């Protein structure tokens, strides 16, 4: 990205105009290093969204349908965990994965896998808590019907997850958004290693440290554009699927 670096100026309108110009250039000219960083950002955040979906959707549905002592406590804990501070999660995962930590033998620290783990910890609560709310509302509506069909817990959960799939897509997008936008955790567990664990947000933090504010903001605009494009894609797919499979 050095080729597109421009001499910085102090804050203000100039910087912002310059950033948009840079962002436009980055989006139209495929710089191989930028492509690699964008690719890693998407790979890490999509992987953590997937892992979180596999954990969070069943967990949310289970808490919505099941009745057990301490259920209210679990709901409050899940809701509160949506606001987990990324830097604390990063530090905790760092200590777990460090060679001196309990999972040190796997050597995962400073790899993309460590970043996926940290992001998963951050977004499982979001997906589980929002899923719980959606499924609980659907459960209130369909409970009698499902019980008259003698559906077991397992079957009821799956049916409700399927019935609310369009709402749950938005939940997944919320999780992905948090993962892609996050910097505090991934910079600690990934180490922002050039070509290995440098993602969009950590690259932005680095360019800011170098005082190259136009490039930093330009990268930010690229990141926002990508997240926007992904959401447009999801929205269109959803509309299409709804029309087709309703």
């Amino acid at each position, binding site marked *: 990205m050095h080729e597109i670096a421009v001499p910085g100026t102090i804050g203000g309108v100039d910087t912002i105009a310059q950033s948009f110009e840079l962002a436009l250039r980055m989006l139209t000219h495929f710089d191989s290093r930028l492509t690699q960083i964008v690719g890693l950002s998407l790979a890490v955040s999509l*992987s953590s969204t997937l892992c979180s979906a596999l954990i969070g959707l069943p967990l949310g549905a289970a808490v919505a349908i099941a009745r057990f002592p301490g259920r209210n406590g679990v709901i409050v804990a899940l809701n509160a965990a949506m606001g987990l501070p990324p830097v604390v999660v990063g530090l905790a995962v760092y200590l777990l994965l460090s060679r001196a930590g309990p999972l040190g033998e796997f050597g995962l620290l400073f790899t993309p896998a460590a970043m996926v783990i940290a992001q998963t910890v951050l977004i499982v609560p979001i997906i589980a808590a929002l899923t719980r709310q959606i499924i609980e509302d659907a459960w209130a509506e369909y409970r009698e019907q499902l019980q008259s069909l003698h559906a077991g817990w397992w079957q009821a959960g799956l049916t409700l997850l399927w019935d609310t799939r369009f709402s749950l897509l938005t939940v997944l997008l919320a999780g992905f958004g948090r993962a892609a936008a996050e910097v505090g955790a991934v910079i600690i567990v990934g180490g922002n290693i050039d070509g290995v664990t440098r993602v969009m947000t950590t690259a932005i933090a680095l360019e800011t440290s170098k005082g190259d504010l136009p490039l930093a903001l330009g990268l930010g605009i690229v990141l926002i554009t990508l997240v926007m494009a992904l959401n447009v894609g999801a929205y269109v797919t959803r509309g299409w699927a709804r029309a087709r499979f309703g």
Partner: protein
Amino acid sequence: MITRGLGLLLVASSMLLSSLASADNPFIVVASTTSTEQSGLFSHLLPAFTKDTGIDVRVVAVGTGQALDIGRRGDADVVFVHDKAAELKWLGEGNGVTRYPVMYNDFVLIGPKSDPAHVDDGKDIAVAFRKIAAARAPFVSRADKSGTYSAELRLWKDAGIDIAKDKGPWYRETGSGMGPALNTAAAMNAYILSDRGTWLNFHNRGDLHIVVQGDKRLFNQYGVMLVNPAKHPNVKKDLGQKFIDWLVSPRGQQAIASYKIDGEELFFPNAGSDS
């Protein structure tokens, strides 16, 4: 639709991750300082090393204090930092084997062109620090356990100032890396101690420029050490030692000397010295 979506997501992300994980070369992890990374030295040096040896170097750039801690925990193979006292203490605790001096550069005192403490063009850093403290002129401190912060504390001591006691609102402890601290200083028109490399590569200078340089107390030595393989069996002893040997070899030393910004040499090789 959800299952199909999830399936697609699974395929896409596993494809992406596996394509990214295809590191062909053996690699080492080097915990180093923001000054070596942000000055651009590593992007100049490492390709030459990789070309010579086929070993990739993954740099985690943090403050010296944190870099030493990463090494202490066994999360890096080599540490490459600049705080001799802290390095020797670290070695003494059995965290590493031998310390090799590699190169030096220097610290510079940066300040606003308006120069409220009247220190511009001084040659004596202790005098400059005394003047800043006397004028209560804004001064940005890293305050983060970095090598630069250690040097700053040493300089206050040299100037006969007990900064812990004497500091007031004019002394701003940011607890951040060199770049963010420079951004802060630029926004507040404050004085700040920086390593020369980071300063030369720093774009957002605002009204700041170098006000004091060249005092021998501003000398900044870098050392490199292998993390103790006896303490951490996962350390890639041979690959890490190869990196160290290359850095102190004539070829590595030459590569360090040839790194310039705007024709200015940033780091001066001095392997084999007792610095």
